[in-house]
């Protein structure tokens, strides 16, 4: 078994050389086609099907947008963002000029600095959503990993908490949202709030929905540490803290990461729904506003948002995968 593993790792080590010599052979060609050509074919077939099928679906806002309209609207959304930025820059310059003039006349005058009042663009909403999802996900991780370790180490505690986990895990974000909103508005009262209430509401909803996979996986990973390694730890008389940091946590890192990837995926899905329902800034609100707007371009713009949501979710997962490969020892 171990010799087998050894040989395979040796093959991997010389893989670079092999790839060089095989570059133009049929096998390599077949692999490139599998990795690159087939996915491209898949996407093209989908686009073709979409292009043909879309005009057949008629809605009150006109026919369903095909890829061409969505592409045009994506460009439009980007252009709007650029225009808005220019206007915002002009606004800042004008404001500075005006303030400078006022100060020149009367050095003691109180000048007001306002932020640009324009509506957030599509790109702004993406950025808001990304910040919210990362904040919610990080908070979920900060709760789930330590709690999972404690549960994994203590069978009794796990038996006590497990029913709660099973019950709360399947709860939809939409059910949490009203409660979170009310609690946040009641408890987060401050003259000069550091965060917007809407941001907190979305973030906490994301946390509540996305912490379960990480929590469960961490618990499972911690409970499944090789008993031999636990004995090594006992023979060495490692302190509780060293035991957790040097044996338990590294041993469960691969399974924790699997949980984190699922959690992040859920966080992203939940966020869009939460933003839509709560009308808090972000991609979800963009979709909802376009829907309410009901112009002839609305459907194309929503479709552009759908694709952006999907693409961002994919990129987030890829980032987690790369991180996992960097950190986890079994990759």
């Amino acid at each position, binding site marked *: *078994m*171990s*010799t087998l*593993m*050894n040989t395979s*790792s040796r093959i991997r080590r010389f893989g670079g050389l092999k790839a060089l010599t095989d570059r133009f052979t049929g096998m390599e060609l077949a692999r490139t086609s599998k990795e690159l050509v087939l996915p491209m074919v898949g996407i093209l077939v989908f686009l073709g099907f979409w292009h043909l099928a879309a005009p057949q679906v008629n809605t009150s806002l006109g026919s369903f947008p095909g890829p061409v309209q969505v592409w045009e609207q994506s460009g439009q959304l980007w252009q709007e963002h650029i225009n808005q930025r220019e206007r915002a820059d002009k606004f800042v310059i004008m404001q500075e000029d005006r303030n400078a003039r006022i100060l020149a006349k009367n050095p003691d005058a109180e000048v007001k600095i306002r932020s640009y009042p324009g509506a957030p663009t599509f790109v702004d909403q993406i950025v808001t959503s990304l910040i919210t999802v990362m904040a919610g996900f990080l908070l979920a991780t900060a709760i789930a990993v330590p709690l999972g370790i404690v549960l994994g180490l203590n069978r009794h505690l796990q038996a006590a908490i497990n029913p709660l986990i099973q019950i709360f895990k399947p709860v939809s974000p939409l059910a949490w949202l009203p409660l979170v909103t009310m609690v946040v508005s009641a408890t987060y009262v401050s003259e000069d709030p550091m965060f917007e209430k809407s941001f907190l509401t979305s973030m906490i909803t994301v946390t509540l929905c996305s912490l379960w996979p990480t929590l469960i996986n961490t618990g499972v990973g911690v409970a499944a540490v*090789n008993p*031999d*390694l636990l*004995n*090594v730890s*006992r*023979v*060495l*008389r*490692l302190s509780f803290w*060293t035991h957790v940091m*040097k*044996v338990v946590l*590294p*041993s469960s*890192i691969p399974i924790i990461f699997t949980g984190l990837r699922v959690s992040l995926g859920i966080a992203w899905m939940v966020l869009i729904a939460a933003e839509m329902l709560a009308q808090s800034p972000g991609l979800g609100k963009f979709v909802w506003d376009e829907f309410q707007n009901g112009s002839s371009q609305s459907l194309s713009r929503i479709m552009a948002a759908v694709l952006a949501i999907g693409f961002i979710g994919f990129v987030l997962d890829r980032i987690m995968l790369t991180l996992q490969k960097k950190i986890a*020892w*079994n990759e």
Partner: protein
Amino acid sequence: MSKPHLELTGVEMSFDTPKGSFIALDNINLKIKKGEFVSLIGHSGCGKSTVLNIVAGLLQATKGGCILDGHEINSPGPERAVVFQNHALMPWLTVYENVELAVQQVFRKSMTKQERQSWIHHNLELVNMAHAATKRPGEISGGMAQRVGIARALAMKPSVLLMDEPFGALDALTRAHLQDSLMEIQQELNNTVIMITHDVDEAVLLSDRIIMMTNGPAAAVGEDLYIDLERPRNRVTLADDPTYVHYRQEVLKFLYEKQRKLESITPRRNNQTTGTNMQKDTAPAAKA
């Protein structure tokens, strides 16, 4: 004889099972001298590992107790280092870091950083693994990983080295090689060693003394055989040595005549290691 180094007195071990309590060990008494190499041999399921785990402190005897250098053993500790059958190295640490984890823990206060570094290297060199210090356990062979496991145990400067079938998972050639290394190291350091084995040749070749255990349940010490062969021992010349052959026969007689284990082959198919060992040991030709 002065006070024994390690003493087991009236050790009994019973486990609670749904069908009532199961007595694994019954009244084990052993006195082991400093520097003695003792093998525990017996059929599988006879409680050899239980004895070792009690000495290690990983298990608590139900009755009786275990005294090392005048102190009762109640919990595990690095002065009773264990070499596990499947090396039990942390797969996420390199060879060096695995030994470092132990050295760091045991000599944090008594050694400087430089001293610890050279001590880790010294132990890796002792088992001929210094060249692979930066490798992970997954990148080296089973035999090499087992060497590192031994280095880690030795690096704790244990007063007793406990080995639970240390070479059981290795192929015959690697095993012979590691046995020779272990003999050399033992000659140099003069550790007290308790080793569990299934292999009669291994027991006779390495030990000063072989404790043969009766079949469980309620296993006890059956025979206590002192191996009076000069060291260093050479497996090739010993193969013909009449004393060696005699000792070997003694152990075989105990295992396959006095404590013969009657079991049909088919229902125990999952326990193949025992099966192959038995065949090998009953074969007339000695392993060279």
